[in-house]
């Protein structure tokens, strides 16, 4: 196997294994200390709990092999935990061909 063939297979395996999830946040309140554990997810237009404080809007974008519901929800939860949130309300998932995006409202006690 020469160098060119090796590079070809390396490139193709890179494309096959290509999957990334990026997370973003816009703070509209004060974040808490990063925490672990579970995050409650409230989908769509269901009202958020009244006793919680608003922290901000979080977004997770999955690309390539990560462009699916599982990876986007995982990204949203990880971002919420890093901001000290216990609930992600108003969660919405938008699916594309090679990209998926999820947004939600991050809230904490």
């Amino acid at each position, binding site marked *: 196997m020469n160098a*060119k063939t090796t*590079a*070809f297979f*390396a*490139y*193709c395996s*890179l*494309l096959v294994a*290509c*999957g*990334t999830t*990026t997370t*973003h*946040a*816009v703070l*509209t*309140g004060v974040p808490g200390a990063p925490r672990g554990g579970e995050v409650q997810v409230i989908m769509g237009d269901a009202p*958020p709990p009244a006793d919680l404080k*608003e922290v901000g*809007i979080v*977004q997770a*974008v999955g*690309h*390539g092999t990560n*462009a699916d519901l599982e990876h986007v929800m995982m990204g949203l939860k990880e971002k919420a935990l890093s901001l000290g949130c216990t609930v992600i309300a*108003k969660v*919405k998932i*938008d*699916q*594309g*061909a*090679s*990209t998926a*995006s999820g*947004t939600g*409202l991050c809230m904490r006690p």
Partner: protein
Amino acid sequence: MVYGELAVLGSETHMLNRVSFGVPCLPMRLGGLLLVMLGACGPQVEGHAVATHTPVDAAHIDASQVRVSAVAIPVGATELGIVQAHTVQGSIEDAAPEFAKQVALLGGDFGKINDVGTKFEMTTRTRTESYSCGTSTSPRTCTRTVTETVELATTRIIGMAYRMAPTPKAPPSAQEGSSPKRAPIAQ
């Protein structure tokens, strides 16, 4: 809509996933190809605002003074209009400052986000790129036309602009000039 102008450069990981090449698999030229692609793509941000009520006054608010919430509107706030900000190939972090800017342009100091969403569309575009085609002894640069199909993600923030009620001023002291009384501090 023009996609050529760059506001912020996109990250390399994004590009690997979004682009399907219209040329044969050319691993040796991947580096040069990525550089060309990075120069051609990046988040584009745009915002719009429509007044639905007559502004209280024409005072311009600095966008940094605009407070934003996705939950509640302050008591007594006056509605000014509809505000939208969207970004192509960007995130909410790119669109949010534009949202605040549009609120400020309507004279508002508070923005209520009603919805955040992303839409996707596939577009085909053609561009010319250059690459090394010579040998080590006689280097040359060639050009070729590449047609690529790209999925564009448009993230939109839509909401309303408000002017918050003015903070009530403290009543004037009965004895002007006297030393102010301090409120008792709870122990």
